[in-house]
């Protein structure tokens, strides 16, 4: 079912210098501590990270629980903020497809689509034989989820020892890591424009609708970047 050799190869990508492990660990420590402070128990905290495995969604859930939002509200807010996973999946899975892999495996493997694993895969897919890319991807995803789950548990247990300044310090690690990754990804006109316009339009649309700004801003910026890049030979 899974080629162990490629699974392990993907799994141990987490050890490389460019790995998101530190950023992932720091931000999920903060999530674990936050979960404890709003009254979740350890099982619920681990269960939440394992099942959701997408940071902004978990943050929204935690905030919604604090203000007592309805289930439908939580569902819609999380869907909106995590809808970015849709273009991410569409821009990754064609690279992983191979006729020898069972269809069900793709639907299970897509659970691992989150920024951290996605970026590792985007960087490494060319070095992996096409037939085994899905197994490699499952390895990468499993490693990232393991880091996230352990960090959540760790954060839950050390919550009482973290003061507010430390929590703020932990919260910046992930944005800084991804800012660096985005700057690193600006290798041609299209990518550079996608990244720069994305941040500009994301903010502009915030003034129109804070809920929809990521989707509208991302869509406008990505489409503009695509067309300008095409006109200028990428």
């Amino acid at each position, binding site marked *: 079912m899974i080629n162990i050799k490629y699974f392990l190869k993907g799994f141990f990508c987490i050890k490389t210098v460019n790995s*998101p492990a530190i950023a992932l660990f720091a931000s999920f420590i903060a999530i674990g501590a936050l979960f404890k402070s709003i009254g979740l128990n350890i099982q619920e905290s681990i269960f939440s990270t394992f099942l*959701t495995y997408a940071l902004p969604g978990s943050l929204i859930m935690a905030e919604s629980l604090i203000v007592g939002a309805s289930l439908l509200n939580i569902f819609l807010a999380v869907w909106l903020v995590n809808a*970015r996973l849709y273009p991410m999946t*569409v821009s990754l899975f064609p690279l992983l497809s191979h006729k020898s892999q069972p269809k069900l495996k793709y639907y299970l493997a897509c659970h691992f689509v989150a920024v951290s694993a996605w970026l590792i895969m985007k960087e490494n897919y060319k070095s992996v034989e096409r037939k085994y890319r899905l197994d490699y991807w499952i390895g990468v995803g499993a490693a990232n989820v393991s880091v996230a789950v352990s960090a959540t548990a760790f954060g839950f247990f050390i919550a009482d020892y973290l003061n507010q300044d430390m929590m703020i310090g932990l919260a910046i690690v992930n944005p800084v890591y991804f800012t660096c990754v985005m700057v690193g990804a600006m290798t041609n006109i299209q990518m550079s424009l996608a*990244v720069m316009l*994305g941040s500009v339009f994301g903010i502009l649309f915030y003034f129109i609708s804070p809920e929809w700004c990521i989707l509208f801003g991302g869509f406008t910026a990505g489409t503009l970047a*695509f067309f300008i890049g095409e006109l200028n030979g990428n």
Partner: protein
Amino acid sequence: MAINVLLAILATSLATYISRFFGVVTSKKVKEISKIFKWFNCLAYSTLSALLARIIIFPAGALAEADYFIRFIVIFICLIVFLISKKNFVYPTVLSALLLTFLNSSF
């Protein structure tokens, strides 16, 4: 707490999985070398960038308590460190937590 935590967790994970699921469904028709694929690649990076800008400029949670100006200084210094360290990811990420904790407790 007004609603059941377990149901909230399930709603959150379902809302997250939906985008991944439809991503797989759509991706079956998308060829790696097509224009559509390139367009989606742009969309993926720009939406991530939009999310990032929102987190940094209009943060939710703990980050909102750090001053606007301090957040910018930290991001700016870390980016410089990233660029002069030949794109090493470890230095800026570790530095960011220490720097923000220090600056926030000092000012």
